[in-house]
């Protein structure tokens, strides 16, 4: 299958107050259509930077990103993003937040689609409420609904469940997977949780500590759905998990020294 997203030789150097930080160094990989890619790496290794470049929010210092074979200097209408810190618009109702992206897609008619997503994500009855009236878990459901509402071909998620408690996180992970099995989008999902990365991903990218580079890429072939006990407690799952643990530990120790 032809790759959908290509990252070739991407480097990013930030300058702040005369100091230079190399956030990414020569990162190259490809993502296939409908692939669920999860990315793990030590804190500050450039995961968010990578996603921003992928989304077209940030032009890399060098290297190139291609989407469907074309370079793309600004956010593509096929993309949508879910943020770690939700980023709902506080002056808009839940419904207006969910429908936010539609206006840029010339699709005014999708009112039903927003309603449908609101129902599917358990937000019914809150359409006229404002984000501050919702719990963190509900706010992130709105964030997910907002992203899905534009029917993106590529969904980018930057630690979307990190700010949530364990239970809410598990519920949203399952919902996320249900939605994904329903209409397989290409997903690029950043996380701090190894379990989450294995549960969700087809392809798992492990990054090196700063400057961010790719350490390992692993295809995950465990049968889905993976939260079933027989998968989650299978030797294959546990082995994979401890393998990734070790890889990350190396990076963290490297930095400590």
């Amino acid at each position, binding site marked *: 299958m032809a790759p959908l997203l290509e990252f070739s030789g991407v480097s990013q150097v930030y300058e702040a107050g005369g100091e230079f930080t190399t956030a990414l160094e020569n990162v190259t990989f490809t993502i296939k259509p409908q692939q669920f890619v999860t990315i793990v790496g030590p804190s500050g290794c450039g995961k968010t930077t990578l996603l921003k470049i992928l989304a077209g929010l940030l032009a890399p210092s060098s290297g190139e990103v291609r989407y469907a074979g074309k370079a793309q200097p600004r*956010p593509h209408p096929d993309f*949508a993003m879910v943020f770690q810190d939700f980023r709902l618009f506080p002056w808009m109702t839940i419904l207006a937040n969910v429908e936010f992206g539609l206006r840029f897609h010339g699709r005014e008619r999708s009112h039903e689609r927003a309603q449908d997503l609101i129902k599917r994500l358990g937000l019914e009855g809150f359409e006229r409420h404002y984000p*501050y009236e919702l719990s963190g878990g509900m706010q992130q459901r709105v964030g997910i609904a907002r992203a899905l509402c534009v029917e993106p071909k590529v969904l980018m998620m930057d630690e979307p469940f990190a700010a949530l408690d364990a239970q809410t996180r598990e519920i949203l992970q399952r919902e996320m997977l249900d939605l994904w099995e329903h209409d397989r989008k290409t997903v690029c999902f950043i996380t701090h949780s190894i379990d989450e990365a294995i549960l969700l991903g087809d392809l798992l990218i492990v990054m090196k500590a700063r400057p961010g580079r790719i350490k390992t890429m692993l295809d995950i072939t465990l049968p889905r759905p993976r939260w079933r006990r027989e998968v989650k407690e299978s030797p294959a799952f546990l082995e994979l998990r401890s393998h990734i643990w070790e890889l990350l530990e190396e990076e963290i120790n490297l930095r400590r020294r």
Partner: protein
Amino acid sequence: MRLLKRHRSLVLGLSGLAGFLAVWELATATLRLVDPLFLSAPSVILSEFGSLLRSSELNPHLWASLKEFSVALALAIVAGVPLGLLLGRLTILEELLDPFIMAFYSMPKVALLPLFLVWFGIGFTSIFTLVFVMAVFPIIINCLAGAKTVNPALVEAARVFGAGEKDIFVLVVWPSTLPLILTGIRLGLGAALIGVVVAEFYIGNSGLGYVLVEAGATFRTPKIFVVVTLLMAAAIVLSKWLEWIERRLAPWKYR
């Protein structure tokens, strides 16, 4: 009982006010503890208000003050809001003008009145200028702060979904600035009211400030109280009204 609980602050506020008026009335009208030259009884003030209404003696003054107040405030809004927003978005301009704005914002602007009298003579222009200067700075300062409170994370979120610069202004910058614009207008309004009264103390032969000075000079204490009460009521109504608008337009700010 439940009704009492729900409106507790209103009920308590009104009973406090009623008690205060009762004591005042008792001390002045009934017990005559205070010389009526210094303090008029509420009943006397009320009947003075009635007779002023009937003679419509106050009308031209009310009208004059209203005109000065509204023309100057409107222009302060029209000039102050865009200027404040611009300063908030253009750091270079802000840095350039910061000393002037800080100086004018902090200083007691009534001190400039004699200067305006020299420049513009005794008349509407001087009053207008003072009221404008008093109202415009709180508006500028708040709009400037408002333009700075725009959260870059939200701008980024809008951009991901395909928003261009114009969309970002309309959908993100404007709504996040609006609450502080309204706060600026509310503060400007209070300042304008002070400006009108003070300017009329010194200038002209009309307006509520003039009525106050004249009533004082002729020892018509009840009339002073009527005008003071009117000003008080106007200030409360206007600022409550703006507060209500703020709450309507920016409910997320009042969680």
